[in-house]
């Protein structure tokens, strides 16, 4: 990712970098949609369109060696951690150059060399694993903070409760990031909990719980930076509930009949990319800068897709490799 800002935009460098990341995520997922539609990519695809500020903001607040554990909706987290778009696309296309040689696929790839410890397709399962990464960091004196992201629906999974308590009683440096897009698949979270202010549950475990606007990249970054610093300082975990909306279905092909009329149109009014762009324009960033950023991101993704499509398929003769050490 390259920044196309001019020197006059320097005070906005951080915001422009966030916008750049968000644009890359959005365009990557639009490319994935296109390839899925054409059947070049097969199977279930879960997109994070509309939730990009969570990934861009959080990753700006993390150190490069902080491990991130995401859900199956992880393309955005991966890209924000710096995983190359080519490696992600190639993975989804089953190519040898995919980050997991076609074995992980859209829902389970990882790229640990970029601090992306992987997606997880079992709701809630990543949280205890993140606690383990945090435990290792503490024992080795590495001061890493483990970030585990999950949805609002996942808050009702036993593994999440067990992980939060475990992290809290051991003061482990874990950030529990709840991406609250208000739906668990096709069911609104408010219909399966008594109190939909999920951040309040943190109090039960004796850790801070906070709700932030997950479509505001600066709010996300500041909140994560604050709690990451606390955790690194030995003060234990935090639960951050980031309010957002997905602008697409739960999975590719989801017709979203469960969404009330007008909800999506309203969500588009608050969507994070347009919002950041408007704010930067209002603050005086040149329209040219913003346009150039977008054009460069589009060119990046187009190049990545071309390279991924040209790459050879993973070799079926190697399919049994990596099963045992």
């Amino acid at each position, binding site marked *: 990712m390259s920044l196309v800002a001019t020197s006059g935009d320097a005070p906005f460098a951080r915001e422009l970098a966030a916008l750049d990341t968000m644009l890359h995520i959005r365009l990557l997922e639009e490319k994935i949609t296109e390839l899925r539609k054409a059947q070049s990519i*097969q199977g279930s695809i879960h997109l994070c369109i509309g939730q990009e500020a969570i990934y861009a903001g959080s990753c700006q607040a993390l150190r490069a060696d902080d491990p991130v554990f995401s859900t199956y909706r992880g393309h955005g987290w991966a890209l924000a951690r710096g995983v190359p778009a080519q490696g992600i696309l190639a993975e989804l296309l089953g190519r040898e150059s995919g980050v997991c040689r076609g074995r*992980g*696929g859209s829902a389970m790839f990882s790229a640990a060399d970029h601090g992306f410890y992987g997606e997880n*397709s079992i709701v809630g399962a990543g949280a205890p694993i993140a606690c383990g990464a945090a435990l290792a960091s503490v024992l080795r004196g590495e001061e890493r903070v483990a970030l585990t992201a999950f949805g609002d629906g*996942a808050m*009702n999974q036993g593994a999440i409760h067990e992980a939060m308590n475990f992290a809290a009683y051991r003061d482990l440096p874990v950030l529990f990031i709840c991406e609250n897009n208000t739906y668990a698949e*096709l*069911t609104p979270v408010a219909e399966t909990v008594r109190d939909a202010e999920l951040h309040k549950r943190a109090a039960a475990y004796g850790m801070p719980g906070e709700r932030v606007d997950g479509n505001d990249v600066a709010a996300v970054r500041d909140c994560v930076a604050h709690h990451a610093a606390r955790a690194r300082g030995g003060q234990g975990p935090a639960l951050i509930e980031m309010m957002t909306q997905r602008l697409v279905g739960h999975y590719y092909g989801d017709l979203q009949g469960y969404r009330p009329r007008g909800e999506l149109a309203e969500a588009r009014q608050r969507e994070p990319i347009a919002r950041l762009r408007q704010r930067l324009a209002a603050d005086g960033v040149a329209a040219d800068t913003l346009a150039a950023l977008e054009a460069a991101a589009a060119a990046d993704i187009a190049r990545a897709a071309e390279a991924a499509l040209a790459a050879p398929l*993973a070799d*079926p003769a190697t399919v049994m490799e990596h099963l045992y050490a």
Partner: protein
Amino acid sequence: MPEASSSTGVAQLSFGKAVNAALARALEDMPEVVLYGEDVGKPGGVFGVTKDLQRQAGAARVFDTPISETAMLGVAVGAAMSGLRPVVEIMWIDFSLVAMDQLVNQAANVRYVSAGRLAAPLTVRTQQGATPGSCAQHSQNLEALYAHIPGLRVGIPATAQDAYDMLLAAIRCDDPTLVIENRAMYHGDPQPVSLGGPIEDACGARVARPGRDLTLVAWGAMLFQALEAAAQLAREGIEAEVINARWIAPFDWPTLLASAGRTGRLLVAHEANVTGGFGAEIAARVQDELYGRLRAPVRRLGVADCRIPAAPHLQAALIPDAGRIAQAARELVGEQRDRRTQP
């Protein structure tokens, strides 16, 4: 009396619609049936299998749950011990592992350790199998895991009629029962399904195609690969008898032994991993029971012992298909021919 409707007579139904019809009938006939799961109520299920059931039976009996598998299955155990007949959808069998305690340590023990004074007549509906692009946590075939547990019944319907009959049998059955469907089949072509008939017991295999030269036994989606293989073999003059096992636990040994005893050769094909798969159990048992009457050793085909990769072409490298079943069958028949020619 209302006219014969979709709840009686013969209807053309896809596999998924047959499941839906069975659930509708159970909800109508048995006030103690409750149906719940993630997205099962209002949305009608991610595969549309429980569509309209909440409208028909009401939100008190058909409802959506939090993503809390342990609670879902534990609630089913308690409710079943208390006189309800819960039918729970676990969206993917892989997710049942999150709550396996409730099935294995809890549900399966209730009847035995209470000397029959308590029972847990719950039904878990779930689905399994690999489909192109599905990740390793959405691709497993875990029937052997549950068949290993005495006290649990495990059924794997293959046809739309199976889907209807076996689910009703499971719901009516007084034991905890797992019915494993196959998502690749939910939206398949409609097949004739006879509705409203008597409810069978939760056991029993079927001969899906008669033959004299060897027996092929398969279940779920693999049945269709076996039938396709049998069709290929028939063109070469090899007549394979194909058995649709239907219930893995308890297994219908008499039907299988009768067939294998007659043909003298048995090939098991399944989509689960070979090692420790249910095919191993079948091979061991049949060899034990039919020692001396078999004309060749029992053979098993299954997925190579590996995790399941997401890429479709990598999956295809691991999963048996009709061609591989037919080839193994040829080898089985050839083996015997070779042996006969030995001095």
